[in-house]
């Protein structure tokens, strides 16, 4: 009990401890804000990637694709851990709007909109056909024309607040798409015949995945037409990827292992079939593995930022150390009295460690509270700053970031508070140890009083 009373008393009476309190609170305040924003950006980016891919993919980076995908889809659909499966054609194409001489290299994704929406968040990325995804490739101005869904940045411009001006219905726009059709061996399928396949598709909807690289360079086409355009319909039908969504109660990694073993089993049964050599490059990956190169960069930046804060946070440890050193130097008589009535050295260390703990906990709670308060208003503050001073944290015409993430995560908060407490304990350790070694005879001798 005396430890508790003395801790509170020292904190209240020794004004110098306010400084350590302030330093810890300020540090926690800044770290909570920066880490919440940074973590929010990373989590949001990961979630968008997950939404774009689904849970797992089976396929190959080669644009030739791989055959016998339909049978494997049937196998997957019969598994109780699989919720939905969607085959995808991937290729690169040259896109030209019909009434301009602009050409643009784009990534083409051939999909079945219904299956793909069950597997990924394709449906949610659409603007006009969210409630009727089966018509995603039906241009409302001419339903008989073949439709396409370009990434939103290919057809609309983002304003300074990061919003797009969507029209009531898709405007009439023909997009001529050219592709190199490839044989199963990867050679040009139309050698000597103009070499490319060209077909005009009509703008039927736009897709906003929130991933800049996807939204400014991807065009979705109907699966069959993409397959035809890319020469993947003959002599053997091929697909580039199979996207899979698992049932909610399954673990991602376990399910990926199951899919991998199913694939290996299936691949063995095809070894003597024509085109079986294309199956060699087919890989099974979780969405995290598939998008690792993109996600890792952001995660690394988060780690680097954490390391930098640890470095800067060392100053706070020094402050705590100095403050405790001062307090203990001034309280040598208290320690002498405590020791003389039988309090052990360990208990003296406990007393000051408890003081450090109380200080770390209270300061970090205050810092975290103000951090949370600031974060809860951060988007309003940014809007106000933009309105009055034309200042934005991120220029939304350049970065595909919507609101500033401000959702304080309990785990992050706990880690920050724990770190602050540990920093206080570390800072107080040496002075406490020095205090515990104080000899009561020396501390209480009359000449020193």
């Amino acid at each position, binding site marked *: 009990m005396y430890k508790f009373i003395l801790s509170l008393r020292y904190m209240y009476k020794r004004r*110098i401890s306010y*400084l*350590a309190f302030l330093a810890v609170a*300020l*540090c926690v305040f*800044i770290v909570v804000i*920066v880490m919440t924003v940074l973590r929010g950006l990373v989590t949001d980016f990961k979630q968008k990637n997950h939404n774009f891919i689904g849970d797992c993919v089976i396929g190959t980076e*080669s*644009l*030739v694709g791989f055959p016998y995908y339909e049978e494997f889809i049937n196998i997957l659909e019969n598994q109780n851990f699989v919720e939905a499966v969607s085959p995808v054609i991937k*290729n*690169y*194409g*040259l896109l*030209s709007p*019909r009434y*301009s*001489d*602009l*050409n*643009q*290299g*784009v*990534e083409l994704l051939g999909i079945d909109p219904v299956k793909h929406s069950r597997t990924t968040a394709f449906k949610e990325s659409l603007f006009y056909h969210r409630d009727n995804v089966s018509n995603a490739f039906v241009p409302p101005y001419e339903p008989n024309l073949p439709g396409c869904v370009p990434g939103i940045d290919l057809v609309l411009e983002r304003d300074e607040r990061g919003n797009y001006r969507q029209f009531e219905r898709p405007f009439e726009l023909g997009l*001529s798409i*050219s*592709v*190199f059709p*490839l044989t199963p*061996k*990867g*050679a*040009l399928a139309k050698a000597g015949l*103009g*070499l*490319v396949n*060209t077909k005009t598709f009509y703008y039927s909807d736009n897709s906003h995945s929130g991933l800049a690289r996807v939204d400014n360079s991807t065009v979705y086409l109907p699966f069959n037409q993409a397959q035809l355009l890319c020469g993947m319909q003959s002599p053997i039908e091929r697909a580039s990827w199979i996207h899979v969504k698992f049932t909610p109660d399954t673990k991602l990694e376990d399910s990926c292992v199951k899919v991998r073993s199913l694939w290996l089993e299936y691949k063995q049964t095809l070894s003597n079939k024509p085109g079986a050599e294309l199956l060699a490059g087919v890989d099974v990956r979780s969405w995290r593995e598939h998008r690792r*190169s993109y996600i890792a*960069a952001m995660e*690394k930046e988060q780690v*680097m930022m954490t390391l*930098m*804060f640890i*470095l*800067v*946070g*060392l*100053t*706070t440890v*020094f*402050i705590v*150390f*100095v*403050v405790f*050193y*001062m307090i203990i*130097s001034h309280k040598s008589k208290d320690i002498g009295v405590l020791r003389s009535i039988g309090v052990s050295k360990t208990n003296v260390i406990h007393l000051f460690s408890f003081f450090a703990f109380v200080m770390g906990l209270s300061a970090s709670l205050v810092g975290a509270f103000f951090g949370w308060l600031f974060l809860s208003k951060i988007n309003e503050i940014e809007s106000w700053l933009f309105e009055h001073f034309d200042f934005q944290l991120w*220029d939304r015409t*350049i*970065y595909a970031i919507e609101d500033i993430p401000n959702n304080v995560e309990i785990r992050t908060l706990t880690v920050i508070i724990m770190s602050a407490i540990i920093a206080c304990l570390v800072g107080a350790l040496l002075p406490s140890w020095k205090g515990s070694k104080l000899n009561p005879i020396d501390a209480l001798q009359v000449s020193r009083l």
Partner: protein
Amino acid sequence: MLKLFLTLRYLRKRKIVLLSVVAVALSVALLIVVSSLFAGFIEVFERSAVEAIGDVVVFPPARFTNYPHFIHRLEQTNAVDSATPVLSARGLVHLDNGNVRPVDIWGIDPVSRSRVARFKESLISQESSLFESSTYETAVNALVGIAVLSEPDEKTDEYDMDAVRKMIGSTIILTTGTVSRQQSTDDQTSPKITRKTLQLVIQNVVFTGVYDLDKRFVYVPIEQLQKLLYPEQESPVTDQLQIKLSENADEATALAQIRGVWEDFAQTRLGWDQSLIHQTTIITAKELQKNFVVELYKQMGLLMLIFGVVSLGVVVLIFCIFYMIVDTRQKDIAIIKSCGTSNVSVLSVFVGLGCFVGVLGSVVGVVFAYIITRNINTIEKWISSLLGLKLWKSSVYMFSKIPNQIDWSLALQIILFAVLAAALGALLPAIVAAKTKPVNILRYE
């Protein structure tokens, strides 16, 4: 003399002062490293644009002919050193089995381009001359960006140069398209997209170190691209002009001169009307990057602000340490005051000590920051080999090397800030010391 003596004595005898030196050094080092990396990145970003496209670019609203005459007239002005045409298009290249990439195609004149941009130096084989005549009758020689042909290794971020060199001499297929006007039924012209394909022989590989450029571009002779895209055009055609300014040319004057020459040329030689002429963008390479550079500076400022605020802890730390020194050295202070030292002199002892801590901490911090920044690429390599984790990738951060130059002007500002912060931290304890009454401290009882 007494002040210096006491300052040095406290620094030597009171070991705790060293803690504040360490804290200042840490903060200064961190701020200098972060600001130098950011400033270096921005500088390399701006420089790479100038090296890729020259100092000034002329973007007319439409393609134009007779550009050699325009270049000749530009080069007669004292503001322009040289100029080069670019005919651009977009397309797809089929590299080998199952390997297709979207690319930007630039039709260039290699000789004038080498004068305007840093082009020749970025070719990986320096032996062959630019665009030698092709050994294949129907094929055209091309220079291809290294990242079009190969991706850097996941772990080392380096290209397999042997494999890339082996691709020199191989044939690739390029497809691109043009829009031609066709007479439609209702007496109006409607555009028709015509796809064109071209066989290219990789004559050399371009490695600028800027991933975006290396990933996107295929260069072919401008005449060949014109022949492919606009066979009906007899006189040379281009859609942009890139200009290198003379050594001491003033940018604003040069832009005005270029605009004057352009307006005259467009009016007299091309017969363009005023509205078309005024739609022409004449802009410096740096101005082209301005939006992004401003954004980078903003982020750097924010990061510095965040670390700066956290580093304010140093002020608190110095305050605490100095307060402790003043508290425990009251007798010293009382004695020197009783010998006739003024309040200001006592104040200056402690503020001077604070400044000294700031200077010493800054010097240590600068040395530390210099070592880290200059060796940042080696450090990054160590971390990569230790953790198997590549921190810096050209595909993410554009450049293959981390900028490793100290920004001395920013470093100087940080040092000044650190010294001021240290003096500020020492100020209050110094005032307390100055106000010490020797009578109270030195009385016998």
